[in-house]
């Protein structure tokens, strides 16, 4: 077993990609196949079930109250942040808390690679749990009239939203041990209450990005004065993702054991 420590360089070519894949595969394996992901899957199926019920009842399609309740309140306002919060904080924050992340940290791996691998899983799972459901629900409800614009809008909007939520909550879980509580307050109070009262706050609301992107694709050419415009929403989403990722890498570089509060 001698001399392996010095063999980092030749292995690097094949190893570079596989390190990220290795971490991602392990993380996904740890998260799936447990009771909580089953619960989340049921939650993700809920909008589809309700949309189906609405369609069966023969009413509702085109009914603004019903579509808003399912697409906006259930999917964008509830399902999307919950899923982003759970996966964003679970992929690394929870592992740091229970100690299973230590073996990962004591490896000669650039910290941005660890962050990238974890983000791939958090974002990928969040999208997987929300966007297909949003697509099907929107298609069943014929959001935005006949045709696929509503379904496509729902998929793109929720995918962007899931990415931003998961990345931001991931970074939050590296900043504080109470990421979940703070994430909930952000969703319920900042986005839920304050963004409704103070319009300026909408620029700092992931929900508003999601709604704006969804709406812009669903109703192309129609401007909704209550929502951000599409370029703004996209740019702000990207800015949020980049800032959160940078913070995550910086925090992980300086991660100190035993600092998470309990």
């Amino acid at each position, binding site marked *: 077993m001698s001399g392996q420590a010095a063999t980092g360089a030749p292995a690097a070519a094949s190893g570079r990609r596989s390190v990220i894949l290795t971490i991602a595969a392990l993380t996904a394996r740890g998260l799936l196949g447990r009771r*909580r992901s089953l*619960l989340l899957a049921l*939650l993700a199926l*809920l909008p589809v079930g*309700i949309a189906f*019920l*609405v369609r069966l*009842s023969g*009413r*509702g399609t085109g*009914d603004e*109250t*019903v579509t808003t*309740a*399912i697409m906006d*309140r*259930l999917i964008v306002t*509830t399902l999307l942040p*919950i899923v982003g*919060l*759970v996966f964003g*904080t*679970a992929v690394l924050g*929870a592992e740091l808390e229970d100690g299973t992340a230590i073996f990962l940290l004591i490896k000669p791996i650039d910290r941005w690679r660890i962050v990238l691998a974890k983000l791939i899983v958090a974002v990928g799972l969040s999208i997987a749990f929300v966007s297909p459901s949003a697509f099907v629900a929107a298609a069943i409800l014929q959001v935005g009239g006949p045709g696929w614009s509503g379904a496509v809008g729902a998929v793109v909007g929720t995918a962007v939203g899931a990415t931003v939520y998961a990345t931001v909550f991931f970074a939050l879980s590296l900043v*504080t*041990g*109470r990421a*979940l*509580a*703070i994430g*909930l*307050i952000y969703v*319920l*109070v900042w986005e*839920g*209450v304050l963004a409704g009262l103070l319009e300026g706050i909408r620029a700092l609301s992931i929900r508003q990005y999601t709604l704006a992107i969804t709406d812009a694709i669903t109703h192309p050419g129609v401007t909704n004065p209550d929502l951000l415009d599409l370029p703004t929403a996209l740019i702000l989403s990207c800015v949020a993702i980049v800032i959160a990722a940078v913070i995550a890498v910086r925090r992980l570089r300086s991660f100190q054991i035993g600092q998470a*509060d309990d």
Partner: protein
Amino acid sequence: MTAGGDRVTAGPGRAGSIFDLGYRGYDGPRLGRRHAFTTLFVGALRATFGLGRPGRAKILPAFCLVFPAIIAVIFVALNAFAARFGISDIGAIPGHPEMAGAVGVFATILVAVQAPELLGRDVRYRVLTLYFSRALLRTDYALAKLGALSTAVVILMLVPHIILTVGAVLLTTDIAGALGREASDWPAILGSVLLTAVATAAVALVVAAHIARRAYATVTVFGVFIVPQIIVAVIIALDLGPASHWVVLVDLSTVLDAANAWFFGIAPSPGVWPETGLPVLLGAVASLVIAVGASAIMVQRYRTIAA
């Protein structure tokens, strides 16, 4: 004067012996079950507000306490403006009946975050067995936690009402009249707050008692409060006939709103309950059933949980 470590030898041919180290039993008075219950209750109540915990544990409870107070101050200010400019349309000015709707979200956050904290800690550090080997009964443990979390929510919700009352009395020159009006509101306030607190706390604790990991318990509590609300809203909006109206009874926030309306003798919030045509008294009854039922499940859980 021998080598360290072999002073006591248990070899063959040696009789065993028990050494009298001078320990004595305790035969004085014991504080007993009631004291244990009170201690646990006070400890849990303090923990809910982060007292006796490090600073970061106090941030969230402080936030949940301060924000409703700020809202109450805003209500007082709105009332002051209304009085100043002679606006008589009382319905537009928020007061005690509207408070439950305005601060409810903070009660939700507090119980969603602190219920798993109150129960999960004892499970994680495996100290339940210590509690259960004391004078305390398993039922006492559950009830103390339930009582503490309910009390915390009562405090959270009463503070803004108190601010509103003080504001109303100070705003007017007719102090006696204001006191009288406020006093007539207080039975409704107490009833509404108490019912809301116990129902909210009990539902959160039932979830927390069944999900060991703090994070997932919190998210699940959140889901249990929010998701039925949306489903009920959709079903009511679909207007599937009178039989479907009964679905509102599964949503805690809707029945609590109806209960609040019953206590204050006003109309429930528009959107869901009024569409059903059900009497608001039914909301109060349903809330009570949920509160009692959830408490019973929680107590039952601790009767059988493996310590």
